[in-house]
C-alpha cells in the first residue's frame, strides 16, 4: 500500500472526491469519522493575528488553522489542517500556537493514559514573513511537540497540494512518523520562487513545473524514501490511508531519528556532480520502482 498506482478508469476518476480542492475545514471533516468533528478555537472564537491588521492586511477569524477533535474508526483523534488560500497557509504566531498547543495537549492526554491519534494536514509556504520570529518560534514549538508526541503514538502527516509544504513546516512534515503525499504535493525547504529569486533563473526556473515536480514533487519524494505513501487525490483514499498509518507506522524508527542512515545517504552525493532526479532515486532507494 506504500505506492499506489493511480487507477486509470475514467469513471473512478469522475467519482473520486478531490482532497486538493477542499478547504482546510472540509479536509478535516473528510478525514474524521462522519459526524464526529468538533472544532476547537473555531472562527467564532476570533483568535486571530494581532499583527496583520497593523500592517494593513485583513485577518481571518481562525488565522488559517482548523483544529478539531473527533474519531478515527471510533478512536479519539486530533486533526489540524492549514488553509492554504489564506496567506499561503503561512504560520503566524496564532496559527502556529494553535497547532503546537493542540499537539502538546494531545501529548498530555497520552501521559494520562488517554489515547488520541494526531493528524497534521499540511498546506503551507512556511513561516508568515509578516510575523517573522513569532512564527518561527511557533514552528519550533510544533517541532518539539511532534517529537514529544511521537514517543506515544505515530504522528501522521498529509501533504496533498497544490501549495505543498515548505520552510520550517517541511521539517515538521519530515518529523512525522508517517508522511502521506499525492502526486501534486511538493515538499522542500525553499520554494522554487525563492530559489529563483535568490540564486537566479540559471539555478532554477520557477515556471518550469515539470522540472520542479521532478525535484520536489510527491512522486519523487516517495521514490527517494522521504515520503511513505503516494496516493491519488481522493478524500476517501487519503482518509483510509491515515487510519492504516496508525496501524503500521510504529514499526520503523522515525526518519528524523535515523541520523546515521541519512548522513550516509548524503555522503553518497557529490556536490560537484549532483545527481539528476532519476539517479537520486536509485542512489537513495534502490528498491523503489524506477
Amino acid at each position, binding site marked *: 500500500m506504500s505506492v499506489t498506482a493511480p487507477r486509470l478508469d475514467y469513471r473512478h476518476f469522475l467519482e473520486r472526491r478531490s482532497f486538493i480542492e477542499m478547504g482546510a475545514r472540509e479536509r478535516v471533516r473528510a478525514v474524521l469519522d462522519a459526524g464526529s468533528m468538533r472544532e476547537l478555537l473555531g472562527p467564532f472564537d476570533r483568535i486571530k493575528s494581532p499583527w496583520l491588521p497593523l500592517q494593513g492586511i*485583513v485577518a*481571518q477569524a481562525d488565522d488559517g488553522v482548523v483544529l478539531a477533535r473527533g474519531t478515527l474508526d471510533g478512536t479519539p483523534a486530533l486533526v489540524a489542517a492549514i488553509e492554504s488560500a489564506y496567506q499561503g497557509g503561512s504560520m503566524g504566531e496564532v496559527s502556529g500556537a494553535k497547532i503546537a498547543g493542540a499537539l502538546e495537549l494531545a501529548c498530555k492526554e497520552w501521559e494520562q493514559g488517554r489515547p488520541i491519534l494526531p493528524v497534521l494536514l499540511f498546506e503551507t509556504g512556511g513561516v508568515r514573513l509578516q510575523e517573522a520570529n513569532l512564527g518561527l518560534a511557533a514552528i519550533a514549538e510544533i517541532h518539539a511537540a511532534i517529537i514529544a508526541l511521537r514517543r506515544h503514538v505515530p504522528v501522521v502527516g498529509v501533504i496533498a497540494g497544490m501549495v505543498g509544504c515548505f520552510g520550517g513546516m517541511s521539517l515538521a512534515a519530515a518529523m512525522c512518523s508517517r508522511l502521506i503525499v499525492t502526486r501534486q504535493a511538493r515538499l522542500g525547504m525553499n520554494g522554487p520562487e525563492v530559489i529563483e529569486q535568490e540564486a537566479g533563473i540559471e539555478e532554477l526556473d520557477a515556471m518550469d513545473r515539470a522540472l520542479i515536480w521532478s525535484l520536489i514533487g510527491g512522486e519523487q519524494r516517495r521514490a527517494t524514501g522521504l515520503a511513505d505513501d503516494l496516493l491519488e487525490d481522493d478524500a476517501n483514499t487519503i482518509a483510509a490511508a491515515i487510519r492504516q498509518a496508525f496501524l503500521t507506522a510504529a514499526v520503523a524508527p522515525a526518519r528524523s531519528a535515523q541520523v546515521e542512515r541519512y548522513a550516509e545517504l548524503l555522503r553518497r552525493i557529490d556536490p560537484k556532480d549532483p545527481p539528476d532526479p532519476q539517479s537520486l532515486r536509485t542512489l537513495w532507494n534502490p528498491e523503489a520502482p524506477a
Partner: protein
Amino acid sequence: MEKMQYDYPATHPVAHRVHVGVVGSGDLEVLLEPSSDERSHVIVNTSVDGFGATWKNVLDRFFLRFQGAASIEINDFGATPGTVMLRLEQAAEGLRA
C-alpha cells in the same frame, strides 16, 4: 484596509451560527451569528479602500430578501460584488441547513 458598519431591520431571529468562505485572493469570509437585538448588524473589514458605496449597494440588495436578525462580520480580501453576494447567499443557505 477599511472598516465599515451597517444596520438593517429584521423580522425574526436566526437560529444558529454559520461560517463560510476564506480570506483569500478575490474571496471573503462571512461570520453570521444571532444578533443580540432585533436588527441586523454588519461589520465589513476590507483590504480595498474606497468602495463604501458599492458595499452598501450589495448589502442593501441582500437585505431586501434576508430578514433574519443577524450579526454579520465580513473579512474581505478583494472580492468582487458578485462574489460577496454569493458568499452572503451561501451563509443564508447555511441557516436553512
